[in-house]
C-alpha cells in the first residue's frame, strides 16, 4: 500500500486504468499470436510520426472534446446523458442540410447559422429527456437511449424520403457542402500534409474554455453542480431543480450537437446514412469518464483516444493487426475507470482531517440544531 495525497490519487487512478487497458489489449493480441509491441509502436508511430498523422489525430480529437463536454455537464448535474450519439447525429444532419440548402449565402452568415442550427438540434433532442426528467421524473438513461434510436431512424427517413433529391448523390449520401459552409482551412490542411484537420479544433479549445468558465465562474455552473451534488440542499437554498435539470440537459445536448456539426462541416463535408449510433457519442462518453469531467482531463483523454483511433488505422496496414483492438483497449480502459474503487484500494490517502480534532458538542438545541448548531445547552441554571 502506497501513501499518497488525495490529489495524486485522482491522477494515478486514470493512469493505472490506461496502463491496465493497454495490457488487456496486449494479452488479447498475444493469445491470437499478434505482436503487441509491434502493434503499439506502429500505432504511435503512425499517429504521431508525420504531420498528416498529427493532423488527423487533432481532427479526430475535436468532436470528441465536444461530446465529452456534453457528457460532463450532464454528469455534473447528476445525470447520465447516454444520448450523445443521437444528439450529435441531429447536429450533423441539420447543419449539413442548412449549408446544402443555402450554398451561396456569404460564409460569414452561413457558417455561424449552420453551427447554431446544429447546436439547437442537439439541444432539443437532449431537452426532451431533460424536460421529461424535470416534469415527470422519467429516468434519463432510458429516455436518452430510446432517443438515440428515434433519432437514428428519423434521420434515415429524413435523408431518404424528405430531403430534396437535388441535395443528394443517392439515397444514402448527400452532396458535398460548398466552401461557404465548410470548416476547412486551406493553410491548416497544407501545414498538416493534406489531412482533414479543420477549424473544429479551435472551436473545441474555445468550448473547453467556455466549459471551464461556466462551471467555475458562473452562478449557472454553480447551481448545476450543487443540484447534482445535493438536490435537496439546493432546493432549500432556493435553486429550482427543475430549471437546472432542463438547463443542464440543454447545455449537454448543445455541446453534443456541436460535436456532430464539427464532424459534418469539418471532417466529412457531407452526411451519409448511419446504420448504428454514432461513434463520437460513445467515444465522447469514454473521454469524459477517463478525464474525470475535468477540463485538462477531457483534453488529454480526447488526444489519447484519437491517437489510438488514428494510430489503429496505421497499425492495421503496417502490422496487419485488426483495427478492433483499439476499441477493445478503449472499452477496457473505461472498465478499469468504472472499478476505480478497487484501484483506489492500492493507495492509502493521507487523510489530513484525522489530525484535526473536532470540538465536541455537548448537546444540541431543541430542534436538532437547525437554527444554529453551535448553540450549546449547558447545565441547568447556567442560561
Amino acid at each position, binding site marked *: 500500500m502506497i501513501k499518497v495525497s488525495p490529489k495524486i490519487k485522482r491522477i494515478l487512478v486514470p493512469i493505472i486504468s490506461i496502463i491496465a487497458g493497454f495490457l488487456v489489449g496486449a494479452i488479447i493480441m498475444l493469445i491470437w499470436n499478434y505482436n503487441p509491441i509491434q502493434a503499439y509502436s506502429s500505432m504511435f508511430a503512425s499517429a504521431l510520426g508525420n504531420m498528416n498523422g498529427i493532423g488527423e489525430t487533432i481532427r479526430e480529437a475535436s468532436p470528441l472534446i465536444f461530446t465529452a463536454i456534453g457528457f460532463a455537464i450532464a454528469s455534473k448535474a447528476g445525470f447520465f446523458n447516454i444520448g450523445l450519439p443521437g444528439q450529435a447525429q441531429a447536429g450533423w444532419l441539420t447543419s449539413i442540410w442548412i449549408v446544402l440548402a443555402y450554398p451561396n449565402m456569404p460564409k460569414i452568415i452561413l457558417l455561424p447559422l449552420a453551427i447554431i442550427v446544429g447546436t439547437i438540434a442537439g439541444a432539443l433532442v437532449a431537452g426532451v429527456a431533460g424536460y421529461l426528467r424535470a416534469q415527470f421524473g422519467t429516468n434519463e438513461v432510458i429516455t436518452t437511449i430510446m*432517443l438515440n434510436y428515434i433519432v437514428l431512424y428519423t434521420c434515415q427517413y429524413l435523408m431518404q424520403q424528405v430531403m430534396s433529391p437535388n441535395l443528394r448523390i443517392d439515397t444514402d449520401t448527400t452532396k458535398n457542402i460548398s466552401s461557404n459552409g465548410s470548416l476547412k482551412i486551406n493553410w491548416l490542411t497544407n501545414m498538416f500534409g493534406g489531412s482533414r484537420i479543420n477549424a473544429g479544433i479551435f472551436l473545441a479549445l474555445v468550448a473547453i474554455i467556455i466549459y471551464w468558465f461556466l462551471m467555475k465562474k458562473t452562478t449557472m455552473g454553480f447551481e448545476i453542480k450543487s443540484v447534482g451534488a445535493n438536490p435537496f440542499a439546493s432546493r432549500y437554498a432556493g435553486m429550482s431543480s427543475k430549471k437546472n435539470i432542463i438547463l443542464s440537459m440543454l447545455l449537454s445536448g448543445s455541446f453534443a450537437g456541436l460535436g456532430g456539426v464539427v464532424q459534418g462541416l469539418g471532417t466529412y463535408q457531407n452526411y451519409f446514412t448511419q446504420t448504428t449510433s454514432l461513434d463520437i457519442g460513445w467515444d465522447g462518453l469514454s473521454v469524459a469518464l477517463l478525464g474525470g469531467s475535468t477540463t485538462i482531463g477531457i483534453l488529454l483523454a480526447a488526444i489519447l483516444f484519437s491517437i489510438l483511433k488514428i494510430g489503429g488505422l496505421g497499425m492495421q496496414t503496417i502490422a496487419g493487426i485488426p483495427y478492433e483492438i483499439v476499441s477493445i483497449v478503449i472499452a477496457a480502459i473505461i472498465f478499469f475507470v*468504472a472499478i476505480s474503487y478497487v484501484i483506489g484500494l492500492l493507495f492509502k490517502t493521507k487523510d489530513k482531517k484525522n489530525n484535526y480534532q473536532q470540538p465536541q458538542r455537548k448537546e444540541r438545541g431543541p430542534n436538532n440544531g437547525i437554527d444554529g448548531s453551535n448553540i450549546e445547552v449547558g447545565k441547568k441554571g447556567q442560561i
Partner: protein
Amino acid sequence: MNIVTTLALIVSSTFVYSAPLILTALGGVYSENSGIVNIGLEGIMTMGAFSSIVFNLTFASTFGKATPWIGALVGGICGLTFSLLHAVATINFHANHVISGTVLNLMAPPLGVFLIKAIYDKGQTENITQNFGYFTIPGLANIPIIGPIFFKNTSAPAWCAILISILLWWVLYKTRFGLRLRSCGENPQAADTMGIHVYAMRYAGILISGFMGGLGGAVFAEAISGNFSVSTIVGQGFMALAAVIFGKWNPLGAMWASLFFGFAQSLSIIGNQLPLISKIPSVYMQIAPYVITVVVLVLFFGKSVAPAADGVNYIKSK
C-alpha cells in the same frame, strides 16, 4: 391474399422477430429484479450471436439439424461468461451500473469482430447452412383457421421463448428463490438482515440475464441475420431493455411487450407486402418501440413499478 394467409404471414414474422427480444428481455427482468441495472444487454446479445455463428459454421456437418439449437446454448453460455464482467464490476467492485453496462456494449462488437478476423481473416462470416427456419407443430397445425395462423410454418424458438417466459414468471413469483431475488432488488439491507446472501442473489440475477441475453443474440443470429458482422446486433438489446420497462419488470409483461415490439419491427419489414400498411412510412414502425417506451415511462410515473433498489450498489457492512 386472403385474410388467413395475410394473418399467417404477420404472425409468423412477428414471432421470428419477437423470439430474441423475449429471451433477452426475460434476462433483463431477472437482472433488474435482483437490483442490477443491465444496459449491457446489447453487448451480451452480440457475444451470443458471435459464438453461436462460429459454433454453427464449425459444427454444422457434425450435428446437422440440431446445430442451431446447440448453437443457441453455446451463445447462452458465452453470454453468461461475458456478463460475469458486469457482475464482478457492479457487485464486488462497486462500479456504477450504467458505466459498467456501457463497457459491455463498447467491448462486445469490437471483440466479436476481432475474433472473427483472427479466426476467418475477414470482417464478416459466411452465411450459416443450418438455421432455425420454419417449423410446423404437428397436431395443432390441423386446427382450422387458428392452426395455419399460429402453428403452421411458425418459429420454433418463439414458442420456446413463450414457454420459458411462463416458466420464469413462475420462478420469479411462486418460488422461494424468486422471492429472495426480488427482495434483493427491493431492499437489500432487509434481505441481508433476514439472512439472504445478497451478493449471491445478484450474481444469480446477472448470470441469468447473461445466459438469456446470449440465447437471444444466438436466436437472432441463427434465425434472422444468418451471419455475424459488426452490424448484426443493432439496437436489439436496447429494444429488449425497452420491453423490460414496457412490461413493468414482469416476465409475462416483458413477453407481451416483446411480442408487440416484434410485431412493430416485422411490420416495418414486411409492411410493403400488405395493403394499407404499405402506405405508412416504415419509420413509424421502426421508432414505435422506442417512442412507446418513453410514453409508458411518463404515464407510469408515480406508480413506482421498478424495483426500489434497482441500480443501487449494496455494500455489506462489516
